[in-house]
Structure formats: structure tokens, C-alpha cells
């Protein structure tokens, strides 16, 4: 019985690895050398993920030429898969130095990815949790990233202090919203409106704020700052019971401000909690 489950798990893992490898090989945008490099790094991360907790404890590693400090290997692997392998934040720009607002940076993997794509970009990154912010700071300074500005604030529709829920095992799911995760430690963080930071044109707004999407967009809408934004790349978290973040109200803001959008299902969990990837362009 135990053996059967074990074999099933191994089979599942092998198919997942093959899938990821195929995604890397099928990427038309990368040159052959880049593919080999990414593949090599992916395998390295996979091996470290296997060894972590068994033989060694990984705290820091090299990935694609960057030195990365991490919270846990599991989270790091999820981020690598999402950002570097599946390239959910990829955007084809003709400009060499886009201005990027990265809301919800976590440990800064998205910042590294944007710098990997556009080395001359200007990045403004927001992260509320003090613990992950420290790592974010370390990751940007250690790799000598220029033109990156970091803010230790959460994003909402008011300027104040707010309760923030930190989960020990999963820093990717930290949230300002009580309804999402009832478990976890509660700390107080500073929150602010994103509109206070926007003064000129923005090329990409990356929004990954667990369940505060509507609040952030609503604030941008009423302050008129949405006009400064060219493209939005956001993750929509859909929780049917939570009425303050309804899908229809998020989409109606985008429609009202003349955005064309696409969306796609990311993953769906058993309790109907789902995440969607949405990309929006100015018409």
C-alpha cells in the first residue's frame, strides 16, 4: 500500500519535471545558450529542493547569476516555476528601459526577473511584510541592481496602519484580508495608496496583492492615476464568499478605463478559491 503511494508520487513528480523541461525547450524567445542555462539552473534548484531538509538547509543560492536569499526552498521553487519557467510576467516591449511598478514583490524574484529581461528598467517594488522585505532588500543590494526603489508598505485604499496576516510556512500567501487566511500570526503594517507613488507614466504594473486587488484598482481609478498606466499584469484571487473583491467590479474598472484584457485560469483549489492571470492593455 505504502509502496503504491510512493510510486504514484514519484510518477507524478517525474511527469511534472518533464513538463517543465518541455516548457523551457519550447520557449521560442530564448536562444539555445539561454535555454541550456535555464535548464541547468532548473535542475540545480530541483536537486537542492530534494536535498533541503534531508541533508542540508538551504538559506542562500545562486540562480541565473543572481545571489538569492530565500525564506524556504519550497516557496523559492514555486516562484521559479511561476516566474522563470512559465514566465507569467513576460511582456514584449520595444522599449529598453520600461518603468515597472511591482506591487507584492515577496522576496524579489519578480524584480530579478524584470532585471533579467530589461537590465535598464526602473523598478519600484512594494512589500508589506518586514521579514520578507529584509530579504528583498538583501537580494537587490547583493546583486547590485540599479534603479530599484523599495517600499515597505502594503497597498490598500487608505493611508493608515492595518493588520497583516503572516503565515510561517508560506510567505507567498501573506494577506491584509481576514477572510482569506484565518490562521497565522497577526502583525501591524503600514498601508498606503498606490496612487501616492505615481507621478508619471508607467509601462508595467504588476499586481499580486492577495485579495486587495479591487481596493488598489479602485484607488487608482478615483485618483485618475490609472490613465498613467499602459499595461497591467495582475493575479486575481477569487474567493466567492469575500464580497469586497468581486471579479465583476475589478473588470468593470478596467472596462471603464478603456483597457483590453485577457485572462486565464491559474489554479483552482477544492474550496473554490481560485487564482487567475489577467493581462490588460490600454486601447
Amino acid at each position, binding site marked *: 500500500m505504502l509502496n503504491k503511494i510512493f510510486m504514484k508520487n514519484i510518477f507524478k513528480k517525474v511527469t511534472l519535471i518533464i513538463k517543465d523541461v518541455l516548457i523551457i525547450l519550447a520557449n521560442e524567445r530564448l536562444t539555445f545558450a539561454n535555454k541550456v542555462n535555464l535548464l541547468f539552473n532548473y535542475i540545480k534548484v530541483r536537486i537542492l529542493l530534494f536535498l533541503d531538509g534531508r541533508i542540508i538547509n538551504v538559506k542562500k543560492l545562486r540562480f541565473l547569476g543572481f545571489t538569492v536569499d530565500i525564506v524556504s526552498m519550497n516557496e523559492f521553487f514555486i516562484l521559479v516555476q511561476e516566474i522563470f519557467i*512559465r*514566465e*507569467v510576467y513576460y511582456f514584449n516591449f520595444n522599449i529598453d528601459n520600461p518603468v515597472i511598478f511591482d506591487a507584492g514583490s515577496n522576496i524579489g524574484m519578480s524584480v530579478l526577473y524584470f532585471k533579467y529581461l530589461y537590465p535598464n528598467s526602473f523598478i519600484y517594488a512594494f512589500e508589506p511584510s518586514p521579514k520578507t522585505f529584509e530579504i528583498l532588500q538583501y537580494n537587490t543590494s547583493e546583486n547590485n541592481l540599479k534603479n530599484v526603489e523599495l517600499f515597505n508598505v502594503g497597498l490598500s485604499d487608505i493611508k493608515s496602519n492595518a493588520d497583516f496576516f503572516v503565515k510561517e510556512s508560506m510567505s507567498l500567501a501573506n494577506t491584509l484580508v481576514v477572510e482569506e487566511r484565518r490562521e497565522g500570526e497577526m502583525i501591524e503594517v503600514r498601508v498606503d495608496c498606490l496612487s501616492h507613488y505615481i507621478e508619471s507614466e508607467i509601462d508595467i504594473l504588476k499586481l499580486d496583492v492577495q485579495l486587495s486587488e479591487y481596493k488598489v484598482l479602485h484607488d487608482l481609478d478615483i485618483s485618475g492615476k490609472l490613465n498613467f498606466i499602459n499595461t497591467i499584469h495582475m493575479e486575481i484571487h477569487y474567493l*466567492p464568499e469575500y464580497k469586497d473583491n468581486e471579479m465583476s467590479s475589478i473588470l468593470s474598472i478596467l*472596462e471603464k478605463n478603456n483597457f*483590453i484584457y*485577457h485572462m*486565464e*485560469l491559474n489554479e483552482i483549489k477544492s474550496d473554490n478559491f481560485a487564482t487567475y492571470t*489577467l493581462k490588460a492593455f490600454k486601447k
Partner: protein
Amino acid sequence: MAELRGKYLIVCSKNNIMTFGARVQSFFKHFFSIIGKRHLGFGKRFRLLVTFFLVYIKRLMHKRVVNFDGTYVSVVGFRVYFDDFEDFFWSFKDIFLDESYYFKYENKQPIIIDAGANIGLSVLYFKWLYPEACITAFEPHPDTYTLLEKNVQVNSFSSIELHDIALSDRRGTITLFGKNRAATIVEGFFGLKGKWNKDLVENDLLVSTDKMSSFVDGHVDFLKLDIEGAESLVLSEMYNSGVLTQIDRIVMEYHHRTPEVNRLSGVLKTLEDARFVMSFSSNTKKVNAMTHWDFTHLMIVCIAHVK
């Protein structure tokens, strides 16, 4: 730009876009997906596999050796008459291979409403899953309706009700644009009228419309909605007349980038107000590979919320 959009929406032209490699890939993808359909059981899977081979071979020969337009194909033991083979093929792929409309029901006699039945492949599929299902099907285009009627009669199905009307928010008559799978009551659905494929525009005709609420009395287990751009009209009428709460589960094809009346936020608002739990899947390419004009369809699966 409107031309580009039109090109994507004409289902037949998809065929020309596909390369040989992509075809081989899709053949194997479907082959393995049929084998993996555990919910169907062995017999059904075998029948589907046989049908799949048959349809694929016919598709290879179509217009090269024989013209299959206007003939029939045996699908999982049922006989299906059709007008246009390519159209039939894409319906078959959506309904039988991708199983967009699959739902599991304990009660073996579900009540189903099939809005936009086309030639009746979806009716067939529901009858195949649940032979005792009660189905009400709607199809506005007269030519397609004739085929639908024929398909239902030939296979001697019982407890099926057919209506040759278009669904809308009022009773009356309305112009129907286009034909086959793309027939719609929404003006400007394919870009500006006139820029759309010429002979489709010449085929505009007058059909009668009715409200959905005049056909629903009591509980409905499953609503299939594939009405080419009129989703918002029909859903809001259903919500206002209180019919929407009678429905357990909706699988709808939402059509993006249609005129103003049919905005996604409006459709979702109606569904949220009716306390549905939703999930979407876009049946086009990955978001990453998308250009501005790719995103046209969105499958929305709604399940009634436990109150």
C-alpha cells in the same frame, strides 16, 4: 483589424492555420485524452475512440477525395446529419473530445436546457451520458433547426422539446446574422456589419425571439448557454424574472470583444448577484502567447451556491 477578428472567428479557417505538426500533435493529444476519460467507463470510451478515428479519417479525406458536406456520420452509435463537415468537426471536438459540457449527476434523470443547440450534437451528448434526461433545446436558424429535428427523429430520442426561436430579453422578431455555428442576433457581433464575410451578411433573416423565463417552470439541473454574444441579455432577463435561482449549474460560452452590451463584468455581476460560484477557462492560447485579437471565447462554469 475587424478582418483579422473575423478570420479568427470563422471556424473553418482555423483548419488552414494549423500546420501538419500541429495536427499530428492534436491527434495524439485527443487520443490520450479519450483513453484517460475514466468517468466514462470502458464501453463509452471505446465507442468514442472508434468515432474519433472515423471522424479523423473522414476529415483527412474531406475535400481531397470525397466531399462530406451534407452527409451524415455515426457518432457513438447515433446518426448525425450535417451541412458543413468542418463545422461538425469543431462542434464534435468541443463537445465530445474536450467535453466542455460534462457534468456529473447522481439523479439519472436530469432536466437540461440547451440554448444554442446547433445541429444537436450537444443534445446527443447529454442523451449519451444520461439516456433518460429531459432536454429543452433552442435553435433559431431554420436550416440548422431542420437538421436538429432530423437528428433527434432519426435517433428516436424521447422527452426532447425543440424550439425554433432565438433567446433574448423580449418576445417578438429579430434579425439573425450569419449561419451555422456562428448565427447570432447581436448586430455588430463580427465587427461592423458589412465588413463581415459577404455571403453571411446576405443570409440575414428574420426569426422570432422569446424570453427564457417563459420556458422554465421549476428546477433545472443544467443550463448550456452558447448563444453567440447574447449572453448578457438572456442572463439579465433570467435574473430579473427570478428564473436564474431555479438553475443548479450553468456552463456558458462567453464571447469576448462583442459590442458594448455584452461586457464580461456585466455578465459576471448578474451571476454574482444570483449567488453562483464560478470558474473560467479560456479555450484559446496561453495568456503569454496572446496578441490583442486572440481572446474571443471564455468558458464560464457556474455552480449554484449553497444557500
